């Protein structure tokens, strides 16, 4: 096992981690505001097709990423209207959003099937981006750096800003926040839109970086992993980063198992690993009895002020 192999493996892991890290960070903020949006998969697919389509028309991947954010956010706002304005059940609405996003993205993608865009790769000069060792630092798509910057930014926002404090307050006790005079609905709209945009950007990583083309259901269930990741991380950003890389390594194992033909176990076993580990991790966390301690107290409950 040479050094080249290790470098290639690390780059693979980073690539696999980025989408779930982005979507997970977005969902973490949404859940911190007290809303459970199970539509991450749908929003990622909407982001994937929107980002791809904008890139095809504008030939500019930066606009593509903005388009992906807009596509994810628009899909999430549909969810927001149903859940916040009409007090529909968050679980059912979130599931519906996944189904809707899957279907609508396929419909939108019909005319884009078979087209390719220039992959949105490193913007650093080749002397850095393709350098034998320095590519470990400079060889990624700008989306990767964006995801990594968003981790401390989200932490700072939630912990140290007044807006973050209000967002957590709304998720912790919506009625108290309302009685003090904060607008629970507005805060949640903003959080849901942010979650949608982040999921959208995570989704476009598939259609613009990994395989620079559109395919139906190309996010392959990663939205569900992002959801599990939030619980796995106990609603903490630092642990979300660690968890995302943990899952990233598991997913890379599947690829390498296929490629190098690990024969003692079928590759389906490795493919199932991230999902199996999700179940194991969740069972472990809940058996310690502390899973609920950091969960936002109003998570998943509709906001029904009495006055």
């Amino acid at each position, binding site marked *: 096992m040479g050094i080249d192999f290790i470098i290639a493996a690390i780059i693979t892991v980073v690539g696999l981690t980025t989408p779930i890290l982005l979507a997970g960070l977005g969902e973490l903020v949404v859940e911190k505001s007290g809303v459970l949006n199970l539509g991450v998969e749908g929003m990622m697919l909407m982001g994937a097709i929107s980002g791809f389509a904008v890139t095809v028309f504008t030939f500019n991947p930066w606009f593509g990423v903005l388009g992906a954010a807009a596509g994810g956010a628009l899909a999430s706002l549909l969810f927001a209207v149903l859940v916040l304005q009409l007090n529909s059940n968050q679980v059912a609405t979130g599931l519906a959003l996944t189904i809707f996003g899957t279907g609508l993205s396929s419909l939108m993608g019909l005319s884009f099937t078979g087209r390719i865009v220039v992959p949105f790769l490193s913007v650093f000069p080749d002397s850095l981006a393709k350098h034998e060792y320095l590519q470990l630092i400079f060889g990624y798509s700008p989306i990767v750096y964006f995801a990594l910057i968003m981790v401390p930014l989200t932490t700072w926002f939630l912990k140290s800003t007044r807006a973050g404090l*209000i967002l957590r307050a709304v998720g912790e006790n919506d009625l108290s926040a309302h009685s*003090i005079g*904060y607008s629970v609905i507005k805060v949640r709209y903003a959080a849901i839109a942010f979650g949608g945009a982040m999921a959208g950007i995570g989704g476009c990583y598939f259609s613009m970086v990994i395989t620079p083309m559109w395919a139906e259901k190309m996010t392959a269930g990663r939205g569900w992993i992002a959801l599990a990741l939030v619980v796995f991380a106990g609603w903490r950003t630092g642990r979300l980063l660690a968890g995302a890389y943990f899952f990233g390594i598991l997913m890379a194992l599947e690829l390498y198992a296929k490629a190098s033909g690990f024969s003692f176990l079928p590759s389906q076993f490795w493919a199932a690993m991230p999902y199996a580990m999700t179940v194991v991790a969740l069972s472990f966390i809940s058996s310690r009895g*502390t899973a*609920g301690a*950091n969960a936002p*107290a109003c998570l998943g409950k509709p906001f029904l002020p009495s006055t």
Partner: protein
Amino acid sequence: MASPARLELTGITKRFPGVLANDNVGFSVKPGEIHALLGENGAGKSTLVKMIYGIMQPDAGEIRWDGQRINVANPKAARKLGIGMVFQHFSLFEAMTVLENIALGMDAKIPARDLESRILAVMGQYGLKLEPHRIVSTLSVGERQRIEIVRALLLNPKLLIMDEPTSVLTPQEVEQLFTVLRKLAQEGCSILYISHKLHEIKALCDTATILRGGKLVDTCDPAVETSRSMAEKMIGSSLKDISRVAGRAFGATKLAVQALSLAADGPFGTALSDISFNVRAGELFGVAGVAGNGQNALLLALSGEATNADPASVTVDGVAVGHMQARARRGHGVASVPEERNGHAAVPIFTLADNAVLTARDRLGMVRAGLIDAKAARTYAGEVIEAFAVKATGPSAMAESLSGGNLQKYIMGREILQKPQVLVVSQPTWGVDAGAAAAIHQALVDLAATGSAIVVISQDLDELLSLCDTMAVINGGRLSRPMAVAEAKIDEIGLLMGGIHGEAAHAH
């Protein structure tokens, strides 16, 4: 009058559909005066202060502030005038720190560091002890209240409204609170103090305004009045004492709890450790303590909602029932009334008759061949309504349609009329008006007189002292040595409630 009153209300009227909550109420509060607002539940105290604090608008009448006629549009406007309010039910965020909670309640945006130094200054000035970086869920109720008080004091209020502030405090905490309030009043801050605890009002307040059924009954000087005379004005009739046979002898031990331990239920629960006590036939056994010290766990462990691996941890009439579920324990004569009326003791969207079936089906044979005997259920629900003077449209009324006090009377009645050998009740008169509370107390005393053993878990020390024969204090999941109420010292009980175990507690 040299200077105008700080707050003057005249002719305040507020009407809700079907109810006149405030009918032409007027009184005034001078600067630096501690003014009590007295009345039973539903007398209109809360509605009145909500109008002062801008949560509601009066239909008629006027509010004057320092002589100026004002409209308080919302709580923000009230705070701007210098009106602060400490609510009975705190609006706190459990998983956040003290500092974050206070920051959320401030209208002005103050940087965290400045806010912290201002909080420390206010706490130092009034002797309020709080650690700004503690998480609220780890704090006692008294400490939580201090957060609300600090939050109000940071606004330099000219009028502080306190809504039933002492209902959850230990006697020592009450004394500390009074010291703070007296200091505030000396500095010229007026205080509007809502309570139904008359001895506190006598100890603290300069003036008392008494409301009954939304109308002003009297404004009097609590120093001149007796507790009894104020209570009678409050309920509008003469007060009935609990009647009981003097010098009762207790029978054999009915309920024996031996080395009972229970793991904590959830991250904010309290574990029970090594609890032992006996309750004899005819005895009323009180468990005092500040909320959140294991009262809920104790009720669950006794009722059978939480079972124990050791059958002998709970015995009823010599039968070990510690391992049995609630239904099996009911078979052995154990009945219970949990603290939460809606959702625990009763299903809100079930009728009263259906709610009767839930706990009385086995003892009273309401199920035949697997089918509910609806007629038996209705008859029994009717008996309970009749015997306990429950205000309801009948056995088919939904539980949620009853007021808190009436539902509580119904639930107590549902258990008591099953003639349990052992009855465990938690907070039997929480949020219940004085008339209903007296009826519930009398029913408990009467049940004890028939030879049942009764455990009363309550945060209301006055209730336990007037009702029980024996009492113990629960703190941090441990139960103190039982003591005869006749010999109990308030100071010692207070220390036990605060977690300080004196010599006497260690002796056994």
